[in-house]
C-alpha cells in the first residue's frame, strides 16, 4: 500500500494547454495599465482561438462541413459514433494546419499524435473528442501585431508568442429551446476540424488582445485555412485573464469560454479585469475557475471552479496511428504560401504608402485585394487615400462589408483616372463617387452625360475672371497686399463656373491677371 502511495507522489499531472512553464517576456508599459482604486494594474491575457479549418469534409469523416445545412443532414456513421466506426484522417485538414503553422512562423512537428479527451455530453456522440494534447502538429511560433494607431497615427509593434496549434474535432450543437421538456441535438458540426491556436500569456491590454485576434484572423484568411467568420462560429476564443501589480508575478487566472466576437472579447476582458481588481482591492483572492460571458448583460459568470474541473482522462487514440510526414510535405506546402499581411505591409510601404495606410490596407485581406486591383497602373498613394478615406469610410457609415461594396474596383479606378486626366476636379470626384455609390454606372459616362467635366477652356475662365476683377477693385488691391487672399477670387470663379473650372488653370490665370 505504502509503495503505491509513494508512486503517486512522483506522478506529474498533465495539465491542458499549460504544459510548459509560463515565462513573462514583456516589460510593463504604463500605456497598458488598467486603473484601480489604490494603484494601477497590469492585465495578463492569453488566448485560445478555435478556428474552423476550411475543408469540404470533416476531420475524420467524409461528411460535408457546409454551413447552414438542414439539421443532422451532414452526419456520417463516424460522426454519429455508431458502434464499430473508425476515424480516418482527412489530409486536407492536415495540410491546412501545417500551412497555418508556417504562416505563424511556427515549428512544424513532423510527428504528432491524436489523443482522446473523454467527457459525457449529448452533443459529443463518441463520449470523447479527438484532439492533440501531448504532441500537437504545430509548436511554438510568433504573431507580430500592430497595436494602434494612436492619436499620432502611429502603431506599436508587439510580438505575441504562439504556444502551439493542434487539430481537434468540434462537437455538435445542443438546442434547449425546441421542446418544453427535451433538448435536441444537431450533429452537423460534430467532427468538423478545428485548429486550436494557443497564445502565450504575452498579451497586456484589451487593444493588444483585439489586435492579436484581428491579426490572427487576417493571417488565416490570407492563407485560406479558416474563413474567420466569427458570427457563423468559424472562429471563437477562450480568454484567460489575470491581473497583477505591474511587474509582479502572474496572478491567478480565470478562463472565459467561447467568446464569439472581437467586440465581446473586449467587453469580457474589461468586465473580468474590473471584477478581479475589485476582489483584490477588497483584500480578497481570485479563485481559478472557468467563466461564461453574457453579451446581453455584459458580464462574466462562474461556470465551474477548479475543483469541479473535468478530469478528461486524455490518452492516445488507439484508432489512429501517429500523424507523420516528411520535410518534402512541409516544403510543398511552404511553396503554396501566399504573401502574408506582414510581407504585404512592408511591400506597400516600399511602394510609397505611409505606415498608417499600409497597416489599414493589410489588416483585412479584402481591403488589400481591393486596393491592389485599383492600384494596378495607378498612383498608390492616391488609390490608398480613396480606398481608405472615401470607400472604407462610406462602407463603415453604411455598415457594409467591402465584399458588398456598391463601388467596384473598376469604378473607383475610373474615378481616379478622370482626376488624373484633369477631366474632373477632386471636389467633383467626391460628387461622382456618391453618384456611383448610389446609382452605379460607368464614371466616365456619368461625367459626360451630366456635363461634370471641368472647364479647361481658358477663354471661358478668363471671361469669368475679368468680370470678377472688374467688379471688385478693392479685393484686387487687398490681394496685391496679401497674396494669400487669392483664395477668395478662386472661390468666386469656381462659383461662377458651377465648380467645373479647372482649379489649376483658374489659379494660374488669376495670378497673371491680378499681377497685371
Amino acid at each position: 500500500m505504502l509503495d503505491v502511495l509513494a508512486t503517486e507522489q512522483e506522478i506529474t499531472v498533465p495539465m491542458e494547454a499549460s504544459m510548459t512553464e509560463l515565462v513573462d517576456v514583456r516589460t510593463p508599459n504604463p500605456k497598458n495599465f488598467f486603473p484601480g482604486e489604490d494603484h494601477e494594474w497590469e492585465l495578463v491575457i492569453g488566448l485560445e482561438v478555435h478556428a474552423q479549418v476550411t475543408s469540404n469534409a470533416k476531420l475524420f469523416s467524409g461528411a460535408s462541413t457546409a454551413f447552414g445545412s438542414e439539421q443532422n443532414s451532414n452526419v456520417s456513421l463516424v460522426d454519429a459514433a455508431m458502434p464499430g466506426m473508425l476515424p480516418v484522417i482527412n489530409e486536407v485538414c492536415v495540410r491546412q494546419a501545417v500551412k497555418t503553422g508556417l504562416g505563424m512562423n511556427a515549428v512544424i512537428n513532423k510527428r504528432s499524435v491524436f489523443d482522446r479527451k473523454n467527457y459525457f455530453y449529448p452533443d459529443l456522440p463518441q463520449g470523447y473528442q479527438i484532439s492533440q494534447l501531448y504532441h500537437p502538429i504545430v509548436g511554438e511560433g510568433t504573431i507580430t501585431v500592430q497595436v494602434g494607431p494612436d492619436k499620432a497615427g502611429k502603431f506599436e509593434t508587439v510580438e505575441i508568442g504562439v504556444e502551439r496549434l493542434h487539430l481537434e474535432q468540434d462537437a455538435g450543437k445542443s438546442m434547449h429551446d425546441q421542446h418544453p421538456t427535451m433538448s435536441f441535438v444537431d450533429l452537423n458540426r460534430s467532427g468538423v476540424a478545428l485548429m486550436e491556436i494557443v497564445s502565450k500569456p504575452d498579451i497586456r491590454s484589451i487593444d493588444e488582445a483585439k489586435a492579436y485576434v484581428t491579426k490572427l484572423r487576417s493571417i488565416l484568411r490570407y492563407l485560406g485555412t479558416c474563413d474567420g467568420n466569427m458570427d457563423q462560429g468559424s472562429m471563437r476564443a477562450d480568454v484567460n485573464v489575470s491581473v497583477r501589480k505591474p511587474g509582479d508575478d502572474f496572478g491567478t487566472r480565470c478562463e472565459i469560454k467561447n467568446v464569439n466576437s472581437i467586440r465581446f472579447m473586449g467587453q469580457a476582458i474589461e468586465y473580468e479585469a474590473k471584477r478581479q481588481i475589485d476582489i483584490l482591492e477588497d483584500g480578497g483572492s481570485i479563485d481559478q475557475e472557468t467563466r461564461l460571458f453574457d453579451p446581453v448583460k455584459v458580464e462574466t459568470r462562474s461556470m465551474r471552479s477548479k475543483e469541479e474541473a473535468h478530469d478528461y482522462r486524455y490518452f492516445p487514440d488507439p484508432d489512429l496511428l501517429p500523424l507523420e510526414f516528411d520535410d518534402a510535405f512541409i516544403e510543398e506546402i511552404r511553396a503554396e504560401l501566399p504573401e502574408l499581411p506582414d510581407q504585404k505591409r512592408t511591400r506597400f510601404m516600399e511602394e510609397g504608402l505611409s505606415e498608417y495606410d499600409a497597416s489599414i490596407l493589410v489588416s483585412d485581406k479584402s481591403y488589400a485585394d481591393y486596393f491592389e486591383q485599383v492600384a494596378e497602373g495607378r498612383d498608390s498613394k492616391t488609390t490608398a487615400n480613396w480606398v481608405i478615406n472615401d470607400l472604407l469610410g462610406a462602407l463603415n457609415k453604411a455598415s457594409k462589408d467591402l465584399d458588398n461594396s456598391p463601388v467596384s474596383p473598376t469604378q473607383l479606378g475610373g474615378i481616379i483616372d478622370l482626376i488624373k486626366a484633369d477631366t474632373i476636379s477632386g471636389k467633383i470626384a467626391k460628387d461622382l463617387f456618391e453618384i456611383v455609390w448610389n446609382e452605379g454606372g460607368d464614371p466616365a459616362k456619368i461625367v459626360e452625360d451630366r456635363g461634370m467635366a471641368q472647364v479647361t477652356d481658358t477663354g471661358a475662365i478668363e471671361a469669368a475672371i475679368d468680370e470678377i476683377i472688374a467688379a471688385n477693385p478693392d479685393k484686387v488691391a487687398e490681394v496685391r497686399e496679401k497674396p494669400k487672399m487669392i483664395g477668395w477670387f478662386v472661390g468666386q470663379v469656381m462659383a461662377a463656373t458651377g465648380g467645373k473650372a479647372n482649379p489649376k488653370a483658374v489659379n494660374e490665370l488669376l495670378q497673371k491677371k491680378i499681377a497685371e
Partner: protein
Amino acid sequence: MTDLTSLTISQAREKLRAKEITSTELTGAYLEAANAANNTLNAYVTMTDELALEQAKTSDAKLAQGEGGDLEGIPLGIKDLFATKSVHTQACSHILDGFEPRYESTVTQNLFDDGAVMIGKLNMDEFAMGSSNETSYYGAVTNPWLGKDGTKLVPGGSSGGSASAVAAQLCAGATATDTGGSIRQPAAFTGTVGIKPTYGRCSRWGTVAFASSLDQAGPIARDVRDAAIMLKSMASPDAKDTTCADLPVPDYEASIGKSVKGMKIGIPKEYRLDGMPPEIEQLWQKGVEMMKDAGAEIVDISLPHTKYALPAYYIVAPAEASSNLARYDGVKYGLRVDGNTIDEMYENTRAAGFGEEVKRRIMIGTYVLSAGFYDAYYIRAQKVRTLIKQDFENVFAQGIDTILTPATPSAAFAIGDKEMAADPVKMYLNDVFTVTVNMAGLPGISVPAGLSNDGLPLGLQLIGKPFEEGTLFQAGAIIEQAAGTFTPKKWW
C-alpha cells in the same frame, strides 16, 4: 447420405462444387441443428433462417453455373460483435437493445463477397469481456464437451458462442474476435482451431470495439485448413481502418502440408508456471515431440517480460474500453433509462445497460487514466508492452520461426465456478498464455493437441512473426496431423 453438418468447410466446398449437395440443403441442415441445440447450448443469440436460405439460394444459382467465391454456399455463424446490416448486433449487451446497424462490417462483407451464408449471430461475453462466456446478457453458453459426471462446462470466452457452435457442428465455421485470448482460449476449450491474426490483418471497421489497440478478428473452425480458408476471406486491407495493414492476403491454405523440417521452434521457459497442472505440462511436451518428429528444431528461448503481460494487459484493455464504451450513453441508440437530468439519464442507462464485468472494466479503465494515475498505470503499461514486443523481436531475430506454448493453463471449467466468480483475477489468469500475443500484435493459433485426464480437449498455441500466419498454419497442421481432431459426443 452423410450427415451434412459433419462436413468441414473444405469437404463441403468439394461437394458443393461437384454439385453433390446444394447450399440450400447444407444451410437447412445447419439451421435445423442450430435451432434444435440452442435451448441447451445457447450458442446463438439470434437465428437468421430467412436470410440464410435466401443467401443459400443465390449461392446455389452461382454454383450451378460453376461460379462462386471461395466460401460459396458455406453456412457460418457470426459473432454478435460484428455489425451485420439490419440484423441484431448488440455485442451481447443490454445497452445495445434493439440495435440493428445500417452497415456491414468489413470482415462479414468480405465473407459474403466470397459467397458465405450467415445462419445467425453468436453468443459471446458482453462486449467481448470475459473468459467463460458467462457475462453475456443472453446467458451463458454451454460447452458441447461435458465434464466429469456430466458437469456443464463453459466454452471459454469471449468467443464462446463461436467455439461451442463450431464444436457442436451448428455452423461450418464461425467468426470470432480476440483481444486477450478470446479466440484461442475458447478454441482450446472446445477442441477447435482458432487463429488470432497479426494486429492489422483483419479490418476492425464495423466490429464493435473493446480495446482498439488489441482487438483482432479471426476464425474458429473445425480444423487448420478451414481456419486458413476462412482467414483468407476475412482478412483484407481497408482504407476505412487506418490501423489495418495495406498488404496482400496470401493463400494460407497453400501452407498446409508443407514440411517443417529445419523450422526453428522456440520454447519459452517463462511459460512454465508455478502450479501449472501436470497435464498441461505433459501436453506441451507432447507438442515438442510432435514437432521434433516432423523434423523441426526445438530451441529453448526466454521471453523475460512475460510475467508483466497480464497485469499490463488489464490496464491497457480496460483503459481503452472505458473510452470506447462511452458512446453507449442512451442518447443515440440502444437502451435508454430516463432520469430527471441528463446526468441521471446517463447513470440510469449505464447502470442498467452494462453487466458487472463490463462495469468493473470501465471503472478500472477510468481509474488508470485519471489525472495523477495515468503515468503510473497507463504509461507504465505501455512501456511494458514495448518490452514484451522487444522480447519477441529478439527471439525472432535469433532465427526462431515460431514459438510453441500451451494455449490455456487448464481445460474447460464448470459453468458458475465459485472460485472464479469470487475472484475476477482468477478468471483473468485464463489469458496468461494468450495476452502477450495481443500486447505484441503478433499472430497466434490454438490447435487441439490432446485430451485432459477428464477427457476434455486441450490446445497448444503457436506464435508467429508479424504477418506470417502461413507459418502457423504450416506448423499447426503438423500438430493436427499428429494429434488428430476432436469431436464431442452429441448429448444435447
